[in-house]
């Protein structure tokens, strides 16, 4: 089977050109995939995680600051994050909820 034809409409409405949104402003809220219950039990809302690309296959993982233990992974905006991190941008994720779902707010890492 073949898919239907398309036009340039998609690019027009996404904006940001072929590279997608700007890495310097990329920020969003997302649930954490497969959060580690033992780590969840030790953290609080407002704790900060580093957002890193690691593992085989390469995944976007959340490491709780400062100890570096893995909270879980991200599956939202994966292509954007992977590309931006490869270009040298750094991101952090603030824990915004723990129950019933662990959610984080991802944003560019603050430099101070």
């Amino acid at each position, binding site marked *: *089977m*073949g*898919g*239907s034809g398309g036009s340039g409409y998609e690019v027009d409405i996404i904006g940001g050109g072929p590279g*997608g949104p700007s890495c310097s402003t990329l920020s969003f809220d997302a649930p954490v995939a497969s959060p580690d219950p033992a780590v969840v039990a030790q953290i609080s809302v407002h704790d900060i995680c580093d957002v890193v690309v690691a593992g085989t296959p390469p995944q976007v993982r959340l490491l709780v600051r400062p100890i570096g233990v893995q909270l879980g992974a991200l599956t939202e905006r*994966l*292509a954007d994050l992977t590309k931006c991190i490869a270009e040298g941008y750094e991101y952090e994720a603030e824990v915004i909820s723990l*129950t019933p779902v662990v959610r984080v707010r991802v944003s560019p890492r603050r430099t101070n």
Partner: protein
Amino acid sequence: MDISVVGGSYHEVCIDPTVHRLLGSGLRATRLLDALGSHARLNTCVDEATAPELEAVATAFGMTVVTTPRDAAVRYVYETPVHPAVRPGSTRGGPIQVEGEVVVGFGMIETAWTATADRVVIDPQHSDVAELRSRVTAPHVALVLNEHEARRFARRDDLRDAARDFVELGIDAVAIKRGARGGLVATPAGVNAYGAVPTARVDPIGSGDAFTAGFAHAWAVEGAEPLDAARFASRVAAAHSLESAAGFNTDVLADVGEPIPYPPDSTPMVYLAGPFFNVAQRMLIRVARRALRHLGVDVFSPLHEIGHGGDEVARLDIAGLEGCASVLAILDGADSGTVFETGWATHAGIPVVALAENADDHAWTMHRGTEALVVPDLSSAIYNAAWAALGRDVEQ
């Protein structure tokens, strides 16, 4: 129990609110079935460019994926969650064969699949039902589809007739989803109805996939009766709507309510209150009107029914409002006419659902304090306005 899922792994892009993720029917259903306690294995097609992301997502979810090559990525783009999807480009993939005790199969745009199992749940998406059924070898088959697909494939306007036609194809249970209304379940014994599970927040992208996963879990794994399976599936779709596939877990599922009574087959009227003084405002009114009508409710839109005018339009607008079962108010901009209409409706006992990007703003104190539901996103506003109207229809 081991379940084989066959279905698409597609990029889903939404512009407002921003969503960019790799999911699609197959990947989403596999994730949800895993979360519900089964061991689900996904059979899907993937292209070279998407493969690393699929592998990363599968690893993050701890799921097993078996892939067949396709020649290009597939991307569904939504301007908002209530807009129809745009799917640019085309792609072809190799055929897929699945066997197992339970198979959940979604129609795929890039390939055809065959399934041999004890129980098979088919969700055709946009593929032809009879053709999909012909490629399934199983003593027990269920079909899950939405009302628009059902009418199209059966070539019937009456959904009960359409459901009976599908049963005659050798299908044991047919679930026809009707969006905010709930849906119908047909078996050789007859046709019954179930209600939807309302939630304050609604993300309709992928909620149909979630329903199918829930139905498959209840009917094919737990052995539930088809009507009970549909009721459970409504709750799974509601939980998915609240927290998406990545966030879905059994705690979220436990927190959602039971289905509401199925509303009668009438079409209550929703009053669409909002300013229409510039292009952007008129576009939003048109989007909201179309989305409400797609959910099966009628809409009284002053823009469409009355139009622009002077003081004389006020009484015509209010006359329209009097006949409505709920109000969807677009509050952003605090248009005085819109705010007046919400106050009039509240005093008349007509439920008000309001869209305001900053729903917690002090400006909406009177609305929130008089039991209006003020939500920050379009899809939640539209679904809740429809539920309010349908619920009032049940009461009367």
